């Protein structure tokens, strides 16, 4: 599984971190950091994060 965030769209809402804190994190600078190759056990949380992103910037690839 691969996670891609479209940086051009991302507007640092932080909703992804709330849904999947092991994969997405808002750094001290307020900018998004994330794990591109997360553990498969995170799948549900990542899908929740993709749903919750107001900019729909998160893409989950198989």
């Amino acid at each position, binding site marked *: 599984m691969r996670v891609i965030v479209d940086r051009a769209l991302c507007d*640092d*809402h932080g909703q992804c971190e709330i849904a999947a804190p092991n994969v997405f994190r808002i750094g001290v*600078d*307020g900018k998004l950091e994330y794990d591109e190759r997360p553990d498969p056990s995170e799948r549900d949380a990542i899908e929740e994060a993709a749903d919750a992103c107001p900019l729909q910037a998160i893409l989950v690839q198989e």
Partner: protein
Amino acid sequence: MSRVVVVGAGMAGLRAAEQLRASGWSDEILVLGQEPHAPYNRPPLSKEALSGMGAEDPQTWADKLAFRQRPSVADVEWRLGTEVVGADLGARRVTCADGTEVGYDGLVIASGIRSRRLSIDGPAGGRFTLRTLADAVALQPALRPGARVVVVGGGFIGCEVAATATAMGCRVTVVEPLSGCLQRGLGDLVGGLVQSYLSGYGIRMLTGRTVRDLHPVPGRPDRVGSVVLDDDTVLPADVVVEAVGSTPNVEWLADNGLDLTDGVLCDERLRAVGRSDVVAVGDVARFVNPRFDEVARRVEHWCIPTDTARFAAGSLVRALHDLPDDRPRFAPMSSFWSDQLELRIQSFGAPGLADEVTVVDGSPDPCALTDGLIAHYRRGGRLVGVVLVNVPANRHREQRELVSASCPG
């Protein structure tokens, strides 16, 4: 094969289809939606899409704003441009505007809400609302630089339109019947700060005032030329935006014994009260959130279609497969955001229920609002909501968890 029919092809309709699949529903799903477009994202319609799209045709807007759909819904049948006009829940079927009847085993009500209009006659030209893509496409060309825009209603949509139109060079007045803008959502204190901030950009705020009359442009009886308020103030207007709240789309469900006062009353499993084979999701659903109290309410926040769909799909699939449902009660942690000029307002919980507001970080000064403000909202002493203005997202989780801890549900 059995079939679930979803009425409404907005965000809630899409999320319901996806969550039915995620809950193990592998039989037919049919979505009936009145708008001609695939489900799209509404928040940009009052923000960046309104100012940024230019004169592109509606399909271009629809393509840009369309939700990405999960691969699991590739085999879902979408009948767009199809309005459902009636339902017989006893016989398990709905009727479309063209007379077609569609039977179902399970029904998802996802028909959302529509903009209310001012109940004032008068010229129709120059009057707008903002709910759908078609509304935004119609409004956008009227927001020319220099245009005199009167926004009726100072709630979130009204203030966002006012902010966007100002950024587009319009001269904007907001008319709000309450004593301040954004009061219902943010309370007097923070609502007042945002209102003063917007005034600083030249938006004229007329609060405690209602619209009495709409007068035409002299010689053009079909075109609005001015707005007359209850205190006889006359506001010349090229554009009137009616942002005066919404009405749930429930007429098609009449005569089935459902409680349709302000949306569809749901039980704690999001089933329409009295029906195990019918659930409601999104803006149209009225439900109790045990985190806060036992009063059923509709919640018009963007997170709600997703949260309700996830839970309701589980309820419906369990009912249709005769499986027990031992999940805890539905208790979403609602959140809301709003963008107005350089402000990003973010809320968690239910600030609208509070009786006491304290600023815990930042200063309650409209000029300092862009530097960041955190307000805590209490009801009977208990924290029920937080509002963050221009606070970087690295503090959002911690603030949300405060509400989660005091309102565990």
